[in-house]
């Protein structure tokens, strides 16, 4: 079973960008990004982000950068899964909802709807008409690694052919500024893409003995996809997983 990364996108304090067939890191303007643009992206009343909470905005914006075509009819896609890994979950909107409870107007139903991180999955599913499997997971600092691992495992089970995997944190307990937030999105597929995307990397479960150093930080994967310095990158087996398998990521040029 071959798995491919066919698009990758990110939003973090350095800006936002992606890598799909029709985009590359520079033409999205990653190097010219500043705080002002960040505010334009999330803090103003964007039509398509208007009602969303901070986590959903991060998730949806990153997924939009993957360049997946918007559905042009009511056809549902049950072969695509949406997996989200988030360490902080709905932390930001939880605080806002708490405040609303004590205010004269009372608890806000609009905010409450977003106090579950899985609502971000619903936002993605609705935008792209995807009805496949869903998972919203949190595993401390290994959240990204586990989300990616389980996405690959789901694809390997042949239940689905594509997985939109997003690793996202909106706000942090130590720093409330948006600059501490980040969102990485990947489009994983077991089928070779046709028109809209191209193969960026292949992903394999590799159980061969080897001494190659493995990484557990998704930022490292992003660095590798952007500018591969070596033939392959190994992602560490998540802590506690009793297997020799590692995820071997190989850039396809």
């Amino acid at each position, binding site marked *: 079973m071959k798995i491919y990364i066919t698009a990758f996108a990110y939003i973090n304090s350095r800006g936002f960008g992606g890598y799909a067939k029709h985009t590359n890191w520079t033409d999205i303007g990653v190097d010219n990004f500043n705080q002002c643009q960040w505010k334009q992206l999330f803090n103003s009343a964007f039509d398509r982000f208007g009602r969303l909470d901070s986590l959903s905005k991060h998730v949806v914006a990153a997924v939009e950068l993957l360049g997946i075509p918007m559905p042009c009819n009511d056809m*549902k896609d*049950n072969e695509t899964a*949406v997996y989200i890994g988030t*360490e*902080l*979950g709905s*932390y930001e909107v*939880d*605080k*806002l*909802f*708490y*405040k609303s*409870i*004590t205010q004269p107007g*009372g*608890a*806000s*139903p609009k905010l*409450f*709807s977003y*106090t*579950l*991180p*899985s*609502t971000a*999955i*619903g*936002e993605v*599913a*609705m935008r*792209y*008409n*995807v*009805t*496949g*499997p*869903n*998972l*919203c*997971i*949190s*595993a*401390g600092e290994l*959240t990204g690694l*586990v989300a990616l691992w*389980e996405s690959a*495992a*789901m694809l390997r*089970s*042949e*239940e689905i052919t594509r997985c939109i995997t997003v690793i996202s944190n909106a706000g942090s*307990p130590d720093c409330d500024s948006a600059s501490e937030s980040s969102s990485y999105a990947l489009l994983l597929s077991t089928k070779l893409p046709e028109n809209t995307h191209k193969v960026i990397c292949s992903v394999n479960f590799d159980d061969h003995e080897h001494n190659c150093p493995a990484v557990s930080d998704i930022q490292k994967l992003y660095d590798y996809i952007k500018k591969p310095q070596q033939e392959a990158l190994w992602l560490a087996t*998540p*802590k*506690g*997983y*009793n*297997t020799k*398998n590692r995820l071997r990521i190989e850039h396809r040029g």
Partner: protein
Amino acid sequence: MNESCHILAAEIITSLGVGLDHNWKQLLAQQCGIRKLQRFQTGKYFSDTAGEIPLDVFDELARKNSIEDDSKIFILSQAVIGELSKQLSGMQIDLSKHRTGLILSTTKADIEALRPVALGESNRPLNNYWNSSCLAQAVADANRLTGPVMAVSNACASGIVAILLAKSILQQNAADMMLVLGVDVLSDFVLSGFSSLVSLSKEPCKPYDAKRSGLSLGEGSGVLLLSKKSHSGYPFPAVIGGAANNDANHITGPSRTAEGLKLALKRTLKKAGLSPDDIDYINGHGTGTLYNDAMESKGISFIFGHKSPPITSMKGYFGHTLGAAGVIETALCTKILNETIVPSSLGFDVLDMEDHLNVAKSTLRLKKLNNLITFKCGFGGINAAIALQKKGLS
């Protein structure tokens, strides 16, 4: 790759009491654990009733299990694993001697711990359990678990999604055994939230009934021990298939066409290698809200037609325990399979839905109960189902 996994042991704590056997007896006696709120200010919420665990039960659970932490969610988590450990010692299973992992299923973990930060009274939460992965790790550490540890937050479908994830990890041979822990507690946060959505019933909920007027919240914990290998001498069933699908329709409201539920049921049957006729009982989500229950009837009648097997909801007994619901109700489903008895759907009297549902109004003693399906649905449009099969049949 779709192999079964086995439920080796199960335990629960609800507002009906402590222990799976105790709760089972309460269900058979049609006892209702939904009462007037004690820990919370009455008159503040849309409803003053819930499946609340009395404070003295929390105190007793903490004392009996030597839990010094005063977080209610930690007490419920540790206490239910304590109950499970009693079963496991009889089975000569020591969790810490195997590569055992933990998947925590919760919606809001210890959200009350975040209150001082949210209200600007402090910059430190009361504890770290507001973060579900911190709670999962604390429970794993307290039980010396060495396998994978993570938390699932798929709204009210979390418990079933957590079981599916545990099954996937076992199929990867990444752990010897997996604990699936479902836990949620009542809080001002959750009571205010559901009040704001005007989805609470003022009286104990009446799932699937013509007079249903909303849900009753509940709290509790449940734990399942899953393994690829069964354990001789113990009757717990196998999880033979399951699926989770999205409605892609609405963030909080159920789909009017039951799109996601139909898909999840269809795929569950396919993966279990069963036809609709093979299913002898359905444990529905059955929250008691107008639209959820109508959606379920649409999904079930689409898959099972007019010959649908009996269905019940357990929410009338102890309320909607949110992230714990899938685990607590799956634990009770193991009793249903073993005893071949289906406790009635408490609160149900008359059906008035457009689509057919065979709701059990009274306790059923079935001649055959080999396979059942349990499903849960949640915010974000998520629907998740699993099929359980009586031990020895798979």
